[in-house]
């Protein structure tokens, strides 16, 4: 069976660190950064990139449209 792998690209400058995507991810891929963007917000990033399946749950719940989702079949 083909394995599906995903990845996300977060617009870290527009991200406000609301944490909604972190909570929505079914595979605990995302976390909030320890550093801050120029607006002073922690931003979402892939803490466990290998676990991402590209389901786009994070992108669908992001209030600010900051997340692009990518997916490949291997």
């Amino acid at each position: 069976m083909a394995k599906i792998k995903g990845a996300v690209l977060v617009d870290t400058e527009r991200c406000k660190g609301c944490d909604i995507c972190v909570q929505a991810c079914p595979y605990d891929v995302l976390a909030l950064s320890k550093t801050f963007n120029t607006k002073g917000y922690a931003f979402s990033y892939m803490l466990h990139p290998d676990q991402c399946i590209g389901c786009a749950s994070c992108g669908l719940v992001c209030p600010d449209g900051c997340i692009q989702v990518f997916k490949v079949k291997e």
Partner: protein
Amino acid sequence: MSNPIIDPKNLVYEKSKVLSDNTMHYCPGCSHGTAHRIIAEVIEEMDRQKETVGVAPVGCAVFIYNYLNVDFAEAAHGRAPALATAIKRLNPEKLVFTYQGDGDLAAIGTAETIHACNRGENIAIIFINNGIYGMTGGQMAPTTLEGMVSSTCPNGRDVAIHGHPLKITEMLALLEGTCYVTRQSVHTAASVRKTKRAVRKAFENSLQGKGTSIVEIVSTCNSGWKMTPHQANLWMEENMFPYYPLGDLKDK
């Protein structure tokens, strides 16, 4: 550290171009942003960007016209359905929708809301019910739940003094002029998908001249509720949904 999966050819999701790149002024985690994103996606999928007129409310969404790249008119507080009536009657080929909070739609604009729906104006109404007046500091709204704390009912809403929370969407479903009345949310991926289908149906009804459609989105105002965005979502599930149950109220 470059990730080979991150390549345009593998892209499966991104925000619609109908949503501008302007940073939205909403508080982190606010439901308004998610609702805007959904509307933008539907307009793009319907290929109606140049043939849509939105009517903006007074409330936190007052600047929606900076975020959705479609024509907009700004209504006086609560008067969006009256303005949308005129716009749609003068431009029957346009997709016309209002976007309104609960203070706008269910308090100061109650009369305009009811009469536009009763006349069956061919508009779509997107109704963001976060249970309070977000913009002005979290005052009690007609939709505030019994016992819910707000800046003007710090001990919680007391129905003996303040009356019952208004289920205006149920009232609108009773009117002959409404064709589609639904209540949705935007706090999970599944609920976002459902709300998107609901907005699409409401917009198609506007174009087909079937009457007025209302999509209520039960929402959070985490700043006003004084919770984190995630806590607010959980609070909404536990407290808002029992009183404002999700699903279609009317589909004719």
